[in-house]
Each structure stands twice: as C-alpha cells, then as structure tokens.
C-alpha cells in the first residue's frame, strides 16, 4: 500500500467528503461517441454513498445506471467521454485519476460484480487460479498463502467442498455457484466498496434469493458499502437502505427505501410500482406507454414527460430541479412545485403495502 500513499501525497487535495460519506458523485456527465452522434448516457448525476449502507440504483436498460458504475470503476468503454463532473473517493477525484493510480484502487478498494457470471469468468482457467491471480499480483502473496486465502474465501461465499472445487473450471459450476465465485474474486482484496451490477438478473428466483442473502451477510461481516444496480423492484426492497431511481441519464428521485416505496413522489416511480404484477390486484396492468427516449437526441425538459400521464406544459420545456420532500428524500418533478396542481399518488391507496404488513 506504500505506492498508494505516494499517490495521495502527489494528488492535490480536492476532497469534499465529510463524516460518513465514503464516495461522492457530483454532476457526472458521460457521453459515448458513436457513428450516429453523441449518445448522452449520463446527464448530471449526483449521489453519495455512506459507510456501511446499500445504495440501490433502479432504472430500465439504457437509463445510465451501468455506465455510472463503470465510471466509478474506471472501466468505461474506449469511446466514452466524461464531459463533466467529479467522483470523489477518499482524497482522489476518480474522473481525473490516471490509469497507474487507478490500478491501486480498482479491485483493492472498490470491487465489482457483473451481471453474467459466465462471461465474467475465464472459461479456460481453473477457478483456483482465477481466485489467486489477484492475490499473487497485488498482495505479493506466495502461491501457498494465496491458495489458503482463496479456500477461505470460497468457504465464506458458501461453496461446499472448496478443496475439490478449487481445481475445477467455470463450466463445472452452476449459475449460482459461478456468481459466488465472482463475488469471492471481488472480495479477495477486501475492498471497502462493492458495486453489484445486476448480479442476479441471470439467475432464477431461488438462486437469486440465496445470492442476495449472501451479499447481505458479507456486507455485515466485512462492513462493506454497496452500490447495487438493478431493475427489479422486489430485489431493491430486499437490499436497499437508500434508493436512487434513474431515468434517461438522470436521477429522478432518491430517498430512503421506505420513503421511496411507501411515499413515492415522481411519476416514473409511480409508474414502475404500478406496472408490477406483484401487487395484490387483478385487472389490467397499468403499463407505462411508449418506450424510453433515444439518448442520441435527449429530450428537452423532463425526459419522462411523453410517457407521463400527469405531464404539464412546463415538463416539456424545462427540466425540473430536485424538490425536497424530507431531509433524506428528494424528487425531480414539477408536481412538487408549490404552484403545481395537487395530484394524489395513484398507488397510495393500493392494497400492497397494507396487505404485506399484515403478513
């Protein structure tokens, strides 16, 4: 870790982190150069991650949630441009960080789990080697110690017969077991922050439940801070301390888990909750009409307005700022403006919250 300290000394002090906050993203704006033009994937995202909490970023594909997480890891694709914004971690600004410095952070300070466990493991390398690779390279461990540590890790993530499994290839593992291996690799360097990019989307419900339990257990055991990216609101309810809802490259609502689920304020959050068939009701589903906007031509004003039942004229003209609902709960919608008409939340009286509580 000596090299890492050297980096800190050289870096000018840009930190704005206070107290509990471990990671802070400020006005992050990312575009991609494509033959069709600039795709504005992320358009000014702010959030902070506090120590020991799980922050869930919810949104459909193309909303920029994965891009944000990749920017934090510094693994954006080659055609990506960070137009603006900062990512503060410790004393560093990760958007301005050079690759040789980033190398000290990636993996060892911030770990990441990807969506598809099959494509994130090397198919022709034994599991043991993939696990010990980082340990040997970064921690300068010898093979014997690395193996001991790897076996410990495998037991931590709940892989039975670790000794035997150590010498197997990824194809000999089931989907859930593969994801456990990926988690073990991410945790090998004992990072502070774990970014989970849809880790359970490729798995089915029973396995998903196991993996979520595992992540929750590991979080408590190792005092991790987690950024959890998903589009499944059920998973969010299970994992999140705080939630940020993303749409078309912007965060539209953020707050504590209970606040967002029981008292959502943004029409997009309403629509998402309404369109879930899990609610205890029959009849037509309230689907969100239309499709997400094409980010080659980001819409003026509120990006959700064309699909929004409650859109007002101003939604098409100007993007709403964040309005405060409570100290921890903010939503970017003109409906919260003092001059806006009062609209009852369509899911407020729906049965699902009360019904679930009874159980």
């Amino acid at each position, binding site marked *: 870790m000596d090299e890492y300290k050297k980096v800190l000394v050289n870096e000018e002090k840009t930190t704005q982190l206070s107290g509990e906050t471990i990671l802070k993203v400020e006005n992050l704006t990312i575009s991609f150069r494509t033959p069709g033009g600039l795709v504005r994937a992320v358009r000014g995202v702010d959030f902070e991650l506090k120590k020991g909490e799980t922050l869930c970023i919810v949104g*459909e*594909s193309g909303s920029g949630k994965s891009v944000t997480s990749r920017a934090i890891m510094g693994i954006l694709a080659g055609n990506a441009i960070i137009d603006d914004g900062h990512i503060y971690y410790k004393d560093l600004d990760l958007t301005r960080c050079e690759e040789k410095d980033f190398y000290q952070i990636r993996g060892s300070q911030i770990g990441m789990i990807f969506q598809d466990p099959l494509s994130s493991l090397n198919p022709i390398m034994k599991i043991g080697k993939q696990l010990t690779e980082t340990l040997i390279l970064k921690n300068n461990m010898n093979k014997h110690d690395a193996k001991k540590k790897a076996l410990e890790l495998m037991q931590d993530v709940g892989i039975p017969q670790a000794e035997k499994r150590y010498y197997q290839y990824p194809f000999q593992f089931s*989907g859930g077991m593969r994801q456990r291996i990926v988690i073990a690799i991410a945790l090998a360097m004992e990072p502070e922050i774990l970014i989970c990019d849809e880790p359970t989307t490729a*798995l*089915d*419900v*029973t*396995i*998903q*439940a*196991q993996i*979520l*339990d595992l992540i929750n257990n590991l979080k408590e055991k190792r005092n991790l801070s987690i950024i959890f990216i998903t*589009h*499944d*609101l*059920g*998973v*969010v*309810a*299970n994992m*999140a301390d705080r939630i940020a809802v993303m749409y078309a490259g912007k965060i539209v609502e953020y707050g504590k*888990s*209970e606040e967002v*689920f029981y008292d959502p304020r943004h029409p997009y959050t309403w*629509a*998402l*909750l309404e*369109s*879930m*068939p*899990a*609610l205890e009701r*029959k009849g*037509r*589903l*309230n*689907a*969100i*009409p239309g*499709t*997400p906007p094409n980010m080659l031509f980001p819409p003026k004003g509120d990006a959700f307005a064309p699909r929004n039942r409650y859109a007002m004229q101003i939604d098409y003209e100007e993007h709403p700022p964040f309005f405060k609902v409570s100290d921890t709960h903010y939503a970017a919608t003109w409906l919260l403006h003092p001059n806006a008409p009062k609209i009852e939340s369509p899911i407020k009286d729906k049965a*699902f*919250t009360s019904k*679930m*509580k009874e*159980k």
Partner: protein
Amino acid sequence: MVDYTKGEKVLELKNVRQYFSSGWGRRKVVVKAVHNVSFDVYKGEVFGLVGESGCGKTTTGRTIIKLYNITDGDIYFKGQRIASGIRGKKIAIRRAKESILDKKEEYKKFIIDTKSEMSKQDESSNEYIRAQEDMKNAQEDLDKFIEEKRIEIGNIKKDILRSKKDNNPSIEFITKMQMIFQDPIDSLNPRMTAREIISEGLIIRGEKNQEFMTKEVERVLGLVGLLPEHANRYPHEFSGGQRQRIGIARALIVNPELIIADEPISALDVSIQAQVINLLNELREKFELTILFIAHNLSVVKYFCNRIGVMYYGRLVEIAPTEELFEHPLHPYTKSLLSAVPLPDPDYEKHRKRIYYNPSLRKFTPEKPTMVEIVPGHFVYGSPDEIEVYRKELAEKK
C-alpha cells in the same frame, strides 16, 4: 374466476418423457430432461409452468410443439394424438420377448427333470403315464403362452406404426399451435423483414396470394399494436418490446388456438413487460386463446395464469389453481419457490423468512411417489406417507 376445467381439453399430456443422450458406448450419457409429466390444458385458460432454470419447463413446451422427437408418452391436441413416443413400447416388446425365453427355459428344465424321473420308472407304472401327461400339458401351456405374447407383441408393433403415423399430423392441424420464444433478438431472423417473418407461417401453409398475405400481415400488426409501415423494417430497427410484438404477430397470423409462450417477457425491460402482458391478455380474450405460459417469474404467473404446474428436476411436483397454490402450497419445493419471490415492499422483505428446499432430506420409501389429487384440482407429487402429511397440513390450514 371462471372454471375452465369443466370445458374441452385442448392439450393433454400423458406420461411424457423427453430424454437426451450424448456420447456412444460406455460414455453414453442420458439426460432425463422431462420425466413422466402428465397434465391437461383446458380451452380458454392460461396454464403456467414454473420452476427453476434447467427443470425442464422449456423442454416440455418444445416437446409439445414437436421441436423435439418425444421419447415416451402421448400428447393429444384437441383430442387427436400429435406425438407419441415409442420408448415404453420398445421396452414392453423386450419384456415380452424375455418372458418367452424364460418360459422356454423353464419348460426345458421341466422336461429334462421329468425325463430323468421317467427313466427310473417302469414304463407301465402310473407315475410314468402321469409324467407323460404332464409333459404334454406343459407343451400346450408353453404354446399358448407364446401365442399370447406373440399377439401382444404384434399389437404393440401395430401401435408403434400408428404412433409413427400420428407423429406426422397435417400442417393445417399442427399450425393451430404456435410458440412465442423467450429472446426477441435471437428468435427473429436478422436478414428478413418483419413482413417476411410474419408471413412465413402462411407460406408454409401453402398460401400463394400475395395480396391476401399483405392484408393478413397488416391485420396482425394492428392486433399487436404496430403500424403497417413497420412491415418493411428489419428486426434490428425495432426496440425489444416491439420485437416481442413481432414474435407474437408471427404466432397470431395462422389463427392459432393454443399458444405456448416460453418466458415471453423475461428478456424485456420492466416498463415494457406490463405492456406485453396486457397485450397477451387482450388477445386471449379476443380470440379465446388457450395459453401455456412458461415462466420463472412467479409474480407474473400469479397475475396471468388460471392454473399453475410447478416443475422440479423434470417432474411436475404440484398442480393447482393459482389462488389455491399461493395460499396453500404443499410440496416443500413449491414453498421454497414462493418464499423466494421478491416483493416491492421493504418492510415485508426485511422480515421475510426464506424456506430452502433440500431434496436429500426426503425420507426414502419403498413405494414409488405418485401424483395424488388431494382436493379437487390440487395435485401433489409424493409417496403415500408424504401425501398423508400434506393432507393433514391442508386440513389444519383450512
């Protein structure tokens, strides 16, 4: 809730097995993907098939629509047998032949024994004559037995021939059954326009009238909420939800009666999923479609299906109407599956208890487990002891 089970059976599966084998000789591996599955689907209902990945639910769907050659069992569509496996019949023939050989062996032994007995006796003694009669009787018995078995084998062979004939139903008939696939990207040919993809079903049926085909394509495009000008586009020009609509349009153009929907929404975005479910619901009401809905998302299944079958390792472990299944799940696997469904409610999620299913905890019983109807419409798979336990559990709950 309408009770569809009184109506006509559209689809009937009887002891369906689907095995896949790979390798030869000593290395031959047989994967029993679907293992003795029987269920009925009635007209107008949505029958859900759920289970974890690899449990054989997709294979069942594909076997029904004859993408695979069925290994054993029968499938009836609208009362006509459309697929019939011959594995069981071949085994029956082998058994019959073996029993003939056994019987012959037995007879030979008997003859040798009696002859050696006879040689000790006087030719005019009573025992000698009786033994001679015994031998004659045994000979007659054997002939009769062989004759019976031969007739049996002949019948089975005729049955096999009939099966082979039934396995090739007419195109007009079999296209009444259509499938919607999981992945809207992989299931559409990237080199064909939407019109070509959708009208392919008509071409296969022998339709040659271009004008009629164009009209039909426009009709189904309208049904699934697309515009006629979309017909000339290629699949990559559509979004995920639109692609799945093309998949549905392709199934609808031949006016099917049964649609097998193989996880039609799991590859779609959250905000699009509800659109596609609503579309399927509308179409189902409009055309009185029967749908076999294969999925692993239980909340969708609960919303959409009338009856649900739960599969585990190639077997159906529980069949019940949706409400019954969600309120009184009996099989431990169903319970663990239901306990794993995430719900959008943080309070509930934080206090939920998960149940894990461990099949190795099952007590071994000499009796083979079977599918038993515990209350009308609710079937559970288990050995007699387990069924007794389930019965008690259900009585306590109610």
